[in-house]
C-alpha cells in the first residue's frame, strides 16, 4: 500500500459561509452514517426475513390444518402479521446500535466536535432512524398481509384491506414496530451501551409482562394495558376489544409517549454528560 504523502498544506481559500450548520446538514450526516455500516443492512435484512417469513409459516400452517368449525374467531389479519412480534427485536437492535455504536467506537466525539448542539444531533439521528424503521416496518406489514391472505385460501377465511379493521391493523402494525424501535433508541441514549440498551428493551417486552402477571389480579389487570406488548396486540388485531385494554390508537399514543419520554431523558443526559 502506498503511504506517499505530500507535505504541502492546502491553501485556505474560502471565508466562512454565512449562516450556521443545522438540522438538515445533520440529517444528511446521519443518513450517511446509517448507510455506511453493515450492521444496518444485517438488522434490516433480518427484520424483513423474520417478519415476512414467520407470517408466511404461520398462515401456511393454519391453512394446512384447517378444520371448518374449529376456527371460530379466527383473525386472518392478525395471523398474517404475527411475524412483526418477532422482528420487533431486530429493528430494536438497530435502534440501539445507531446510538450505542457511536459511543463504543468513539465516533460520538468526532460527531460532537463537528456539531456541538447535541439535542439537534439526537433529533436528526432519531428522525433518520425513525424514517428507515417506518419504511421497513410498513414494508414488512404490507407484504406479510398480502402473502398471508394469499396463503389463507378457501376453505380458510381470509381478509382484504377493505375488511373491517384490516387496513388499520396493517398500517398500525408497521407504526407499532417503528415506535418500539424508537424506544430501543431511547434506552440506548440513556444507557450508552449496546448490551445494556438491548437488555432493557427486551426486558420491557418479555420480562415486564411476567412481572405484571405476578401482581395481585386487580392491580395486574389495571397495569397490563400499559404494557407495549398489550398495546401491540390491540393494534395488530381486528377483533380486539378485549376487556380492560386501550383502543388501538389510544394505545399507540401511549406508546409514542414512552418513546418520547425516553428520548427526552436521553437528550437531557447527553447534554449534561461528558462525551
Amino acid at each position, binding site marked *: 500500500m502506498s*503511504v506517499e504523502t505530500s507535505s504541502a498544506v*492546502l491553501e485556505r481559500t474560502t471565508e466562512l459561509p454565512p449562516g450556521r450548520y443545522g438540522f438538515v446538514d445533520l440529517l444528511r450526516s*446521519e443518513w450517511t452514517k446509517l448507510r455506511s455500516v453493515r450492521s444496518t443492512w444485517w438488522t434490516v435484512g433480518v427484520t424483513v426475513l423474520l417478519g415476512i417469513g414467520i407470517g408466511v409459516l404461520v398462515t401456511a400452517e393454519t391453512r394446512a390444518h384447517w378444520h371448518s368449525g374449529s376456527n371460530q374467531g379466527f383473525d386472518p389479519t392478525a395471523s398474517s402479521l404475527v411475524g412483526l412480534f418477532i422482528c420487533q427485536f431486530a429493528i430494536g437492535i438497530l435502534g440501539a446500535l445507531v446510538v450505542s455504536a457511536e459511543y463504543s*467506537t468513539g465516533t460520538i466525539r468526532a460527531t460532537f466536535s*463537528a*456539531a456541538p448542539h447535541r439535542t439537534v444531533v439526537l433529533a436528526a439521528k432519531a428522525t433518520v432512524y425513525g424514517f428507515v424503521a417506518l419504511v421497513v416496518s410498513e414494508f414488512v406489514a404490507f407484504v406479510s398481509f398480502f402473502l398471508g391472505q394469499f396463503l389463507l385460501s378457501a376453505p380458510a377465511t381470509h381478509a382484504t384491506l377493505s375488511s373491517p379493521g384490516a387496513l388499520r391493523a396493517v398500517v398500525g402494525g408497521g407504526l407499532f414496530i417503528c415506535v418500539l424501535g424508537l424506544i430501543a433508541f431511547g434506552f440506548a441514549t440513556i444507557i450508552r451501551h449496546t448490551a445494556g440498551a438491548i437488555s432493557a428493551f427486551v426486558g420491557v417486552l418479555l420480562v415486564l409482562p411476567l412481572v405484571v402477571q405476578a401482581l395481585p389480579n386487580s392491580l395486574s389487570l389495571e397495569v397490563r394495558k400499559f404494557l407495549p406488548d398489550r398495546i401491540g396486540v390491540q393494534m395488530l388485531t381486528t377483533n380486539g376489544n378485549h376487556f380492560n385494554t386501550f383502543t388501538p390508537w389510544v394505545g399507540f399514543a401511549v406508546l409514542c409517549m414512552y418513546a418520547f419520554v425516553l428520548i427526552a431523558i436521553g437528550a437531557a443526559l447527553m447534554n449534561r454528560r461528558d462525551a
Partner: protein
Amino acid sequence: MIEAKSLTKHYGAKHAVEQLSFTVRSGAVTGFLGPNGSGKSTTMRMIMGLDTPTSGDATIHGQHFHDLRWPLREVGALLEAKAIHPGRSARAHLTMLAHTNRIPRSRVETLIDMVGLTDVASKRAGKFSLGMGQRLGIAAALLGDPETLLFDEPVNGLDPDGIRWVRNLLKGLAREGRTVFVSSHLMSEMALTADEVVIIGKGKLISQISIDELLSQSSESFVRVRSPESPKLKLALEQQGAVVVAEDDGSLSVRGADEVAIGELAASIPVVLHELAPQTASLEEAFMELTEDSIEYHGSQASNTTGASS
C-alpha cells in the same frame, strides 16, 4: 488563538485539571507537554466542548466552542486515534463529517489523497493500523480547512516517514498563520516542532515558555573549560560569583558565567584555554527537571504512596 482561563476539572475526588490558564497564539506551533495522566487530553476535550469544566473557561478566538457557527470549518481536532466505527470506511467517515458543516465532497477526496489513504479509503477502518488511523484522524481535523487545530499525540503509531510528515505539516500550518496546539509526552518530539510549550504536571500549569528560554534557564546548561592552569582559573571564576566544579577528567564545569565572560576573564589573567565549550542541556533534561516534582506515576514509588496521594 486559544485561551484557557482557570480551567478546572474534577472527577469526584480526583483533580484532573486544576486552575489551568494559558494562551495559544496564532502563527506558531505550541506544544502541550506533560507526563502521561497529567491532564492534557482532558484539557483538550474541554476546549472542544466535549467535557464540561468543573469551573473556568476555554475560548477559541474569544468564542466558546459551542457557539461556533461552523465548528468543523473553524476548529479541527485529532483527539484520539481510531475514533471511528470499525465497519465504516474512511471515505464514509469523512463524508458524514463533511455533511455536518456543508463541506463539499471534493474536499473529502482531496484530504484522502493528501494523507496517503487513497488505496484504502473504501476499506473498513477496523482493518486500519494505528498509523493509518492517525492519518485518517489528521484528515478529519483538516477537513474544514480550520484556522485552529488541536492534535493529541499525533505521531503515536506513525512510522519515521509519517512522523516527519506530521512535523512538516504542523510547521506548515503554523507558517500559514494558523493556531496549532499539539500535545505530547515527549519533549524530544516538541523540540523539533514547537516554538513554544505549555508544560503541565498533575493538571497544573508548570510553565508556559518558548523552547529557547526553556533551554537557557535549565541548570543543566554549563560551560566546559579546560586549561593547564585550572586551579588558578577556578579561583578567579569563583571570585566572579560562578559555581565551578572540577571534574575527574581535569576539566571544569562552570555555571553562572557564559563562554564570553569566561573567555574574557581568562585573557585578563592571563590563562591559556584548551577548551571552552558551552554544554546545552537536552530539552529532555530540561523538561525532566521541570516536571520532576509532578509526575503522577513513579513506578518505584507507587507502593509507598498508596492511600497518601494528594
